[in-house]
């Protein structure tokens, strides 16, 4: 059993298809949709966490790609530049999943990527522009 966090981009033609349903039915995967949105140009974006057998997840990714869904690994997408960061904590109060917190002892910023759902609320909360999104 492994976990993978993926960003799926659905082109306009795919938005109406029951693709996620197939992940359960055909590939026996457990999923958690962390974020989903449809942009004004009808492109769908979804942050999804898949849990299950490694081979099955790999097969599911192939299935998604065959159906024109772009698949990206999500883990590396938010980047805190430690050289610029001043450990103020402005980002911590708006991080709803508490991926960004101040260490209780050192008061320096901790970023727990596993908790991050890529909501991007933190990006423009940073007064020194130390947080960037790498899409």
């Amino acid at each position, binding site marked *: 059993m492994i976990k993978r966090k993926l960003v799926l981009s659905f082109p306009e033609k795919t938005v109406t298809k029951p693709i996620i349903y197939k992940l359960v039915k055909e590939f026996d995967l457990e999923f958690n949709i962390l974020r989903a949105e449809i942009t004004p140009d009808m492109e769908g974006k979804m942050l999804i966490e898949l849990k299950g057998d490694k081979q099955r997840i790999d097969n599911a990714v192939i299935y998604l790609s065959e159906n024109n869904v772009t698949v990206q690994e999500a883990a590396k997408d938010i980047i805190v530049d430690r050289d610029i960061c001043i*450990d*103020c*904590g402005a980002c911590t109060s*708006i991080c709803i999943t508490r991926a960004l917190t*101040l260490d209780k002892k050192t008061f320096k910023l901790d970023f727990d990527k596993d908790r991050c759902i890529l909501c991007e*609320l933190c990006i423009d909360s940073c007064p020194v522009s130390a947080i960037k999104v790498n899409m």
Partner: protein
Amino acid sequence: MAKTIEEINEKIKSGDVVVLNAEEIIEYADKKGVKKTAAEVDVVTTATFGPMCSSGAFLNFGHSDPPIRMEKVWLNDVPAYAGIAAVDCYIGATELSETEGIKYGGANVIEDLINGKPVKLKAISHGTDCYPRREIETFITIDTVNQAYLFNPRNVYQNYAAATNSSNRTIYTYMGKLLPNFGNATFSSAGQLSPLLNDPYYRTIGIGTRIFIGGAQGFVAWMGTQHNPSRERLANGTPAGPCGTLALIGNLKDMNTRFIRACSFRNYGVSMFMGIGVPIPVLDEEMVEFLKVTDEDIYTEVFDYSVQRRNRPSYGRVNYKQLRSGSIKIGKRDVQSGCISSYARALEIANLLKEQILKGKFTLTASVSPLPLEQEYRGLEILSQEEL
């Protein structure tokens, strides 16, 4: 037994001085008691590192040939105030670039200067018989100008409000991004490390006090603007909201951008993170009582920043231990809280100042004149001449 600043300075010179930071003194006093602590500890270092809009620098460029009496000045397209003598100007931290807008401002100019980067100077004048030049465009650096010193009219607020947002839209303020429906709360104080919260009645911090400012040694020049010492205080002397302030001065040429940083709050504007450290002499037991103050003993009020009025509604008091825990209660809600000033960097400054004192590189000064403990705090009313 009381100590004098002269005695403490003698100990600094001989290398016998005992220095703690304002966090360490808490445990020390708790273990050893107030009396012993007063006898054993000589200096406590306090510090803060937060956004302080009321900051800026005076520059004197030196005279060009032929000379110019600069009437309007721009530094990297950011207007500087030039309504003083010929080649003097004041570059304010929050002034915005005429070409870059909110992305670059006076604070960035100051940061670029400290970093040794070239800055474009443009100035115009109507020309006089003694200053015939009517315009100039040239590049300067911190090394080419005669003088560059920071003069900040209001820094080191003795406590500050906490902010939240009851409205149904995200608001962007100088207290940072505030999410709708009490989505978060922000605050800005070093709390138990903060200079004026450790000397609440300004017994040792006054005009002329030598301080750490942006990496350099500087001084308290005056009370800060909006100095409001008459605010209600708790039994430990600390005020439960914005109170005293300091005007500070220091040589920009000696500063370091680890301790002074330009910043920009979205939809609000440019400001500057100022790193300030103030050593407090442990003169007697009363000073220990003040210095052992903890985040739990210091309170502030949570205000609703979605109400666009001078007096915003309050959701009551909360202490800094709660604020720093990451969650506070507003009514029945649990609201995520976060600081917009850096406690980690403040602690670094307090430790650096401690090290400088231990090495004999930083000595204490008695204040030349105390800060007022009573001062009227006025609002601005919109009046006709007859109504005045």
